[in-house]
């Protein structure tokens, strides 16, 4: 025997560095993957890992594993790994990417995951143009759960849940990539296959491109990969590969569906966040920005007032409640303001509960008001019986409706809307009524009211009108009291 010739060889492609050398997160057989012979995931994993290596982004990469056979992607990829709920990978990926813009985030999803349960999440992530890379592995069936029908199952294809073959009643194969390609935002969408070596080479280029787009900050990229599943399809690996090329491709044609890679702009670098010390000021809660002391001099006034204000939505009952509460706070009192309104944006009824007191307020709900401000008839009917004996009803009308139960209660019924109209704008009726109320709450300092009004009414024209309306309301109340005293 002659001596064997000396052979020199080198490994053209070793295992990508982005794979773990042994799969320690796996319980058994840590040198091999859990994928079946002939499964497309192994090929796709390798092209993805190779692209990560080539682009030098292993440290920055975060891989989102879905539910499905690739749920264990984190066994294999030596990158940051997040396992997500069924179909939700695009939502999870969205927030990882937005939280860490420097990361490279890959959502790796199967067809059941992406096109059925996760159809909303992928649609909206694509529509927002999230700067993600989505690897969409389409094998036309639910494999991990044992071969049920997917939205991508071909017409006539049998599955455990379409045993007679998929018919029109089960819907038609969903072309997700084509659907997503109708959106404005996506940068790159391509469908590739693993049907033969030529297709595989193209698939590897597409995966790399989709990743490179993200590295360049270009936006949403998705690669759909038609992938064999010999076990569930009940074929040999070779038959399965041919089926991808000869059958699947007929329903899902390969090709580029969207390519804006040339024209897309890379994302602007986000501005640095403000200094932590500036945050209270930005939020408007820095004490230096608040009125330092109550504008009223001395101790809080002796006032314990419970008010109910009600009217149509748009009449401004919530606003006058707020002015009253703000004024009370300014005067050093404890206050509460609680609104109650229907779902209508306009014309519904609305009312609020306002309390001012020197003591801590227990319940902000006002069951028995000292004063009811009723800006319309339904409100006075609804609330008049609640007013405590000796209290006041201020009503926007000439007289109270006859059937109102208002025993032992003072009443000021005036056409406040008309009075406000005479002052310049019917919409100031609420302020005229507030003026009348403030005359009852006489020891609430005027400075506090002015200061509250100034904070809440920013338009100078309205402020002037509202001040006039308040004065008019006060005067009405004083006159009414004088008349009552005179009469008695």
């Amino acid at each position: 025997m002659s001596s064997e010739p000396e052979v020199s060889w080198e490994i053209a492609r070793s295992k990508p560095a982005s794979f773990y050398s042994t799969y320690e997160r796996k319980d058994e057989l840590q040198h091999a993957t859990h994928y079946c012979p002939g499964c497309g995931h192994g090929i796709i994993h390798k092209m993805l890992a190779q692209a990560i290596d080539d682009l030098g982004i292993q440290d920055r990469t975060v891989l989102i594993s879905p539910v499905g056979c690739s749920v264990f992607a984190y066994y294999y990829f030596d990158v940051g790994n997040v396992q997500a709920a069924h179909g939700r990978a695009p939502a999870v990926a969205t927030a990882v990417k937005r939280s860490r813009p420097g990361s490279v985030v890959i959502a790796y999803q199967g067809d059941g995951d992406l096109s059925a349960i996760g159809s909303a999440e992928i649609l909206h992530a694509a529509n927002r143009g999230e700067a993600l890379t989505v690897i969409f592995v389409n094998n036309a069936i639910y494999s991990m759960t044992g071969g049920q029908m997917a939205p991508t199952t071909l017409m006539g294809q049998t599955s455990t849940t379409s045993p007679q073959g998929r018919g029109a009643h089960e819907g038609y194969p969903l072309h997700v990539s084509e659907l997503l390609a109708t959106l404005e935002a996506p940068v790159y969408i391509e469908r590739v296959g693993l049907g033969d070596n030529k297709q595989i080479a193209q698939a590897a280029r597409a995966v790399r491109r989709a990743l490179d787009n993200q590295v360049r900050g270009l936006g949403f990229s998705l690669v759909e990969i038609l992938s064999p599943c010999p076990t569930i399809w009940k074929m040999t690996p070779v038959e399965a590969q041919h089926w991808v090329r000869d059958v699947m491709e007929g329903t899902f044609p390969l090709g580029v569906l969207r390519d804006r890679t040339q024209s897309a702009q890379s994302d602007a670098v986000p501005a640095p966040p403000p200094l932590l010390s500036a945050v209270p000021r930005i939020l408007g809660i820095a004490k230096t920005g608040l009125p330092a002391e109550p504008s009223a001099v001395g101790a809080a006034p002796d006032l314990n007032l419970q008010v109910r204000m009600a009217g149509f939505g748009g009449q401004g009952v919530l606003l006058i409640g707020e002015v009253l509460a703000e004024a009370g706070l300014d005067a050093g009192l404890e206050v509460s303001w609680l609104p109650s309104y229907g779902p209508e944006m306009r014309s519904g009824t609305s009312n609020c509960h306002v309390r001012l007191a020197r003591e801590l307020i227990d319940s902000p709900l006002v069951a028995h008001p000292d004063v009811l401000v009723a800006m319309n008839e339904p409100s006075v009917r609804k609330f008049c019986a609640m007013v405590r004996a000796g209290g006041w009803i201020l009503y926007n009308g000439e007289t109270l409706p006859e059937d109102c139960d208002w025993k032992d209660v003072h009443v000021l019924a005036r056409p406040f809307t008309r009075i406000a109209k005479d002052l310049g704008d019917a919409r100031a009726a609420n302020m005229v009524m507030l003026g009348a109320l403030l005359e009852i709450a006489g020891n609430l300092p005027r400075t506090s009211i002015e200061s509250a009004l100034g904070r809440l009414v920013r338009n100078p024209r309205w402020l002037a009108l509202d001040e006039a309306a308040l004065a008019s309301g006060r005067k009405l109340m004083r006159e009414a009291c004088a008349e009552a005293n005179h009469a008695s």
Partner: protein
Amino acid sequence: MPKQLMKGNEAIVKSAILAGCRGFYGYPITPASEITEAAAAWMPQVGGVFLQAESEVAAINMLYGAASAGVRCMTASSGPGISLMQEGISYMAGAELPCVIADITRGGPGLGNIASEQSDYHQVVKGGGHGNYRTLVLAPHSVQEMADLTALSFELADRYRNPVVLLADGFIGQMMEPVEFPQSATEPCLPRWAVAGTAESRGNAITSMHLDTDKLESHVRQLEAKYFIAEQREVRAEDWHTEGAEIVLVGYGIVARILKGVAAEARAAGLPVGVLRPITLYPFPALHFQRLAPRARVFLVVEMSNGQMLEDVRLALNGARPVEFLNRMGGNAPTHHEVLEAVRELARRHLPALPAEEEWIVHV
């Protein structure tokens, strides 16, 4: 001390930002929308992320992503939206991810209405999602507590690596009261387990999956151990004039405010009435109840639900004392008057040594 008049819903967002929250992912729903709107206004100004999700399902999964990346994050919703989030809450508890969820409750079941109810107690406190997990639940009863308990929620979420729910009714969310905030903001450090897209965090993996039965069991036992520590350390409740109380009123949220008003009036009339207000609904303040049981003659639980917390009160007392129940539903709050009437009735039945009723009414 200068305070600001503010809605509870707005106070949540400002407090969250001060506590280092830099991610808000939400979907609009009445009566929680002001929280989402305030987050939209403020979060970008402090360099945080605000994103309106396509659904509550997506929103909670976005929290899953943001929390995985090591960012303090929150969402806000109400009953129907919280129902949709339960899947994600289970995943977050399983993967031990911190987040804060504000549930500003409304009326149910189904679409119900937009008025305040407390009928989310079961789905929030008992964990509406699948699997062996708990959420920590805090129940504010004032705008100041909306701020304070939000900050605490973020601390607890990080401490226990678990979702924390701030459970408030629509009243507390919508009402305005004076509030003051801490004058400094926190910047939490990046958790060592986070997946942040960096060399240091490359080996980290977030998952809720444990295929091996023994491993999953051991994982769940670890969660249980964590919850046990929370039960020892994080219980909070307010005892409001409960010393010597023979009638103990029990309620949380807006109901507790009503109860304080009633108890104040009853006490002024010489009745030994106090209020026990659970602040943490999980862990439930069972010991507080047991402490009061020897002296108390009866507990009255008041809820805006069909008696959901009532079950926990009965478990805590374990038959030691009678537990009565008064409730309103559909968006109605129990009135001062009806609770007071119930207290009077309980006094008649359980406090035989009371002065003659006529005398008492004169006092009122």
